[in-house]
């Protein structure tokens, strides 16, 4: 293994070790357990389609939980390292900034995978079907993108509050952008008006810059139809492309930082 790759692997390993020592697995496990109990309650109060109701609630809430936990963990971990001057210490060694950044990203990506596996395991308790595998893969791809986004934000903003606010706003907008596009082009809105056209154009431009997260990790895959390979291939391409873009944007920012 080339020396740089070895250094990246070491940083990734320490990122994972940090997650273990900050009790991330226990936090995630506890919250997943609470959501599972809540899903049992939903199943109990539903008068029809009880399993469908339970799995729908559990899938949607696990998705949000993992996104929330991962983005908070990434932000908290990086801010702690900035505050402890750990970044300066590491970069004072024979390690390029890209090596440090990629190592951290690799570690967070592994945590994203582990969180997706945990969510998939909890889902398996409710639904014993191959659809859970597709759902888990999609969640892992979504979390990979969220990890890259959170890392980029914390490198740019350095503080938790603005970084997390940006991550959540970005995530919500990326999930809603398809619906927003539909709303912006309603024929009821008088298409001849310049303001209607300008807003539709602006929303289109925004949609081109954002990943369409409304196509990721759908509950309908679990309760209705399993997605095809083509769907997953698109999701993989979108996730990898956007994560790479965010990593490069984060690297750009890190290289410009005067530490």
């Amino acid at each position: 293994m080339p020396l740089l790759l070895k250094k990246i692997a070491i940083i990734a390993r320490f990122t994972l070790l940090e997650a273990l020592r900050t009790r991330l697995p226990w936090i995630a496990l506890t919250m997943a357990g609470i959501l599972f109990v809540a899903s049992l309650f939903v199943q109990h109060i539903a008068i029809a389609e009880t399993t469908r109701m339970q799995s729908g609630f559990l899938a949607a809430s696990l998705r949000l939980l993992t996104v929330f936990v991962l983005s908070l963990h990434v932000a908290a971990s990086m801010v702690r390292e900035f505050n402890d001057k750990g970044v300066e210490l590491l970069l004072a060694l024979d390690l390029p900034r890209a090596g440090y950044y990629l190592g951290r990203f690799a570690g967070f990506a592994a945590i994203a995978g582990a969180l997706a596996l945990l969510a998939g395991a909890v889902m398996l308790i409710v639904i014993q079907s191959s659809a859970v595998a597709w759902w888990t893969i999609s969640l892992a791809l979504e979390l990979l993108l969220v990890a890259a986004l959170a890392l980029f934000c914390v490198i740019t903003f350095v503080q938790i509050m603005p970084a997390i606010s940006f991550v959540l706003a970005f995530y919500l907008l990326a999930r809603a952008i398809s619906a927003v596009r539909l709303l912006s082009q309603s024929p009821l809105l008088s298409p001849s008006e310049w303001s209607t056209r300008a807003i539709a154009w602006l929303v289109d431009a925004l949609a081109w810059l954002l990943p369409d997260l409304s196509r990721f990790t759908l509950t309908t895959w679990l309760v209705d139809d399993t997605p095809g390979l083509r769907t997953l291939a698109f999701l993989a391409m979108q996730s990898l492309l956007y994560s790479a873009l965010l990593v490069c944007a984060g690297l750009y920012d890190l290289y410009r930082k005067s530490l």
Partner: protein
Amino acid sequence: MSLAPQRPVSAVPRLVRVLVFVLLASQVALTALQPRPRARAEELSAPPPLPVLRCLSGGDAVPLAQAMTLYLQAFDNQPGISIPFAQLDYGTVTAWLKRILDLDPRTQYPLLMASQLYAQVPDEAKQRQMLAFVYDQFLVDPDRRWQWLAHAAILAKHRLHDLPLALEYANALAQKANGPGVPHWVQQMHIFLHEDLGEYQTARELLGGLLSSDVVKDPHEIRLLIERLEHLKDAENSSSTSGN
């Protein structure tokens, strides 16, 4: 946020700078190559129950009602479908509209959608369903929702050619919508519908009662109604003459 001075752009490796632009262009290309999102009529599912919506709203129901309105509206917006409203399940649409009104009783938007959009489809059963919805909701708050039932009465008369239905709505308007903001013509609608039905005597009695009630104060309006009363008397006389 960091206010520390930044290093020059030249500090960033050329590969990173190139990759940022290449990947950004790839992202734009990937999204632009995807088909535009398109709503389909069959995708509109029943709205969640009211207690669930109240729970989701976190105590602030108006923004949720507004979001639901816009969501429902997105299903009307279906490029490539010539008559989108007609393809919707009107039972579901009515449930959505009712839920929105339950969350935000002061909004007029769902009633506008019901009477001006969904009631325009070339399907009589669906038109009647929407008019019935407007009527039911008018009864909940007549002084604030009278204009939608007035529109429904006009639709019933001119579009459905159902004068008894129009008269039922106009009677409800005359009896229930009596608030200070309701114009007088709303209370007069049923009189002219009686006239259209050939019930001249009823129309004359109602108009006479309206004039003597001192509700109408504008001299121009009073003169117009007196002329109308005379016209009704003539029509009643000529109809009784032709009857003989």
